[in-house]
């Protein structure tokens, strides 16, 4: 599986540049355009990231995560999830910046290439900020009743945690 990861990046880059050249795109102008959008996206998340990284760092130092992790150990053992990733799972559907802050804390503490670090990365990368999407999309057309959207999406998010843990253990 790791081999796929090594080849995919150069392959995708070359493919995109070739495709752009073939379609006669002004390559460098398009690239800098997109990179500028990236900078804007980063600047726009900076304020909330500062607030949330501070809160996550404080929670970590206070020993809160250790207590939470130890409390949930038995349940996690049954499901095959490393309990250390649980705080991230709880944060993911609520806030994007908060879960990036949380993922960063986990990667720094346990190492990005450890089982815990990999599981956390897969969890954070395989689902969206559910509450945000539901609020923005239904809110934009003035719908308050969202029927079964939240229960279905949140159950899927919970299942996603289990899938992520299984996937990382099956293909280390």
């Amino acid at each position: 599986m790791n081999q796929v990861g090594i080849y995919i990046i150069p392959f995708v880059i070359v493919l995109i540049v070739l495709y752009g050249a073939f379609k006669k795109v002004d390559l460098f102008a398009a690239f800098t355009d997109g990179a500028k959008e990236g900078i804007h996206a980063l600047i726009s998340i900076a304020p909330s990231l500062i607030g949330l990284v501070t809160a996550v760092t404080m929670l970590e130092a206070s020993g809160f995560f250790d207590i939470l992790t130890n409390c949930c150990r038995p349940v996690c053992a049954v499901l095959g999830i490393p309990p250390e990733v649980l705080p991230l799972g709880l944060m993911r559907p609520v806030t994007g910046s908060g879960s990036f802050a949380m993922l960063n804390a986990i990667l720094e503490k346990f190492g990005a290439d450890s089982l815990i670090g990999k599981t956390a990365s897969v969890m954070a990368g395989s689902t969206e900020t559910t509450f945000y999407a539901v609020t923005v999309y239904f809110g934009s057309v003035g719908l308050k009743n969202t029927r079964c959207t939240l229960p279905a999406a949140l159950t899927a998010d919970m299942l996603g945690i289990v899938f992520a843990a299984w996937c990382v253990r099956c293909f280390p």
Partner: protein
Amino acid sequence: MLSYLWFGMIAASFFCALCTGHMEQLSKAALDGADRAIQLLLSMAGVMCLWTGLMKIADKGGLTSSAAKLFSPVLAKLMPDYDKDSPAMRAVSANITANLLGLGNAATPFGLAAMREMQKTNSLRTSPNNSMVMFVIINTASVQLIPTTIAALRQAASSIQPYSILPHIWITSVLTLAAGILLAGLFMIKR
């Protein structure tokens, strides 16, 4: 919502530190945290912008619109209230393709347009029809070709193989998406 969460996190850390005697570490963490956020942003910036730049090339070359055509038959099956060639479904496919390519900034306007178009012919008026629920469910799952932010975060944490988790993310996100669609389908049949 975020105000409550933020307040809860800070209050919990204070009481937790009070009980476990970690007050000194907490005081240091509060000041370190803000610093850490900016360092994190800086260390992510390069990789993030590399990918948004590359994806822009793909987008300008017309990859988004040709991929959107590829998906429209599948999406039409999931959202049967709308015709395959209706403006609503065109916006839906554009939104989902942009998300797949990680063009978040481009995806949201398409998504909002899709909701607006779908609401026009929504017979339920005050609540979403099945197709609208399906569309939002797909948007709460994140199937992405290159999960740029995660890769950038892993690189920032000095991972030896920041991209080694790509296949895992693809598998997991597709499974989660399938679970979301199935669950929403089940809930909708029940009512």
